[in-house]
């Protein structure tokens, strides 16, 4: 039980090297909001702590015009990302989901890399990133690779990252103009609780008002964000009327394998998935301009 050594590497490569030299017994520190607690509660007893603080280049937000990717450095804090104009323009629901995490102090320290690497099921941003088809760039001994958020988040606190792999960037395909999106966080107890259920929804409508694109990810209700590609597929081309939304929400509710915890039993979570999937899509529709659209049609 000796005190861990502390490293401030000045490059990603250096960080990877240090991590590797401890052979799995070192821990990265980004915002430290989760790690500090794990260390205090002795959930982890690392031999070394490796702060990413002095690694340059991990704090950028930019849009890559060629690839159409919004690129967010792993060290960008929730607060900084949530108010960043590029994030708000190109992935507004991501800004929304970052803005409802915990409280102001947490958001000003916690990073977008950290929240993914932590893979805590009771989180908000991962579901959004899953719905957005985001990927992460990770640097390891073998160099850089990209991993889809769906492949990254394996289960409770489990990721596909190797022990000496550093997430450097989150890459989000920008939403096409006219797309409606929303992230709704439902807290069953205090307003500042972690989510009981969180739902990210992205809707694109065709000119005839039918559904051209529908992507929905449910977070905090099971081990990792849930997306049902086949169900999304079935809805495409149809009109998103009440019955269709119910059918869609029911499919998520029926297929999820929900957790039970102090924020709600498995039964309750399933019911909340039913409610909030629907509400998130409705909200996304409102923001897509479909609202005006459907009003016109109704007349």
């Amino acid at each position: 039980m000796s005190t861990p050594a502390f490293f401030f590497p000045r490059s990603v490569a250096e960080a990877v090297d240090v991590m590797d030299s401890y052979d799995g017994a070192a821990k990265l520190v980004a915002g430290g909001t989760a790690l500090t607690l794990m260390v205090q509660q002795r959930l982890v007893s690392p031999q070394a702590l490796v702060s990413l603080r002095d690694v340059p280049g991990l704090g950028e937000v930019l849009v890559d015009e060629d690839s159409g990717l919004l690129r967010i450095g792993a060290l960008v804090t929730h607060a900084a990302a949530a108010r960043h104009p590029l994030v708000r323009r190109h992935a507004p629901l991501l800004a929304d989901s970052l803005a409802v995490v915990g409280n102001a102090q947490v958001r000003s320290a916690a990073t977008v890399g950290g929240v993914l690497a932590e893979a805590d099921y009771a989180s908000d941003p991962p579901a959004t990133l899953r719905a957005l088809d985001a990927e992460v760039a990770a640097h390891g001994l073998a160099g850089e690779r990209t991993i889809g958020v769906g492949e990254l988040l394996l289960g409770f606190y489990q990721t596909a990252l190797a022990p000496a792999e550093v997430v450097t960037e989150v890459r989000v395909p920008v939403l096409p103009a006219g797309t409606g999106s929303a992230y709704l966080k439902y807290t069953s107890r205090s307003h500042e609780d972690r989510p009981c259920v969180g739902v990210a929804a992205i809707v694109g409508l065709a000119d005839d008002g039918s559904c051209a694109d529908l992507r929905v990810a449910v977070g905090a209700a099971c081990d990792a964000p849930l997306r049902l590609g086949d169900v999304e597929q079935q809805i495409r081309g149809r009109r998103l009327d009440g019955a269709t939304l119910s059918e869609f929400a029911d499919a998520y509710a029926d297929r999820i394998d929900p957790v039970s915890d102090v924020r709600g039993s498995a039964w309750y979570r399933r019911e909340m998935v039913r409610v909030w999937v629907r509400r998130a899509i409705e909200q996304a529709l409102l923001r897509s301009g479909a609202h005006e659209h459907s009003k016109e049609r109704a007349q």
Partner: protein
Amino acid sequence: MSELQELPDDPGAVKLPDADGRVPVRIDVNGRARTLRVRTTQTLLDALREQLRLQGARSGCGVGMCGACTVLLDGRAASGCLTLAAVCDGTDVRTVEGLEDPSGELSRVQEAFLRHRAFQCSYCTPGFVLALEALLAVDPSPDEAAIREAFSGHICRCGSYSRIMAAALEVAGATDRREQA
């Protein structure tokens, strides 16, 4: 871009703990350069309280939920219990003890809290005060929503919320919502 980028003069890339398991950390605390010897697992909160005997930041929960441990870390409100002291090497930390000016005069926010008697046991008070100071530093006349946002993560178990809001709104120059009601 990120607040974490500022490089200290000498980041001391590796800190190997000495026989006592401690590493040196240089922090500007309330305007004074200090060198602390901390355990690498120690929180900033514990370092301030135990090493520097600054008791203004307090432990209420130890898990980032209550705000009693709030300090200003390079100007922004941070939870001392969620921050490793070792990471603060080269930063500027301000606690409630450092809010008064050299002549001993309290800050505007402190005065307003006193005027409104915005506390009961006052265990939560430094946290609320610093949260508001941090907000005012970036937004001199915040609206009620911004203040509420800044007070997220701050619990007042005694239930002084109304008076805390009244004090904050007064400093913010907004109208007291009690008067509106």
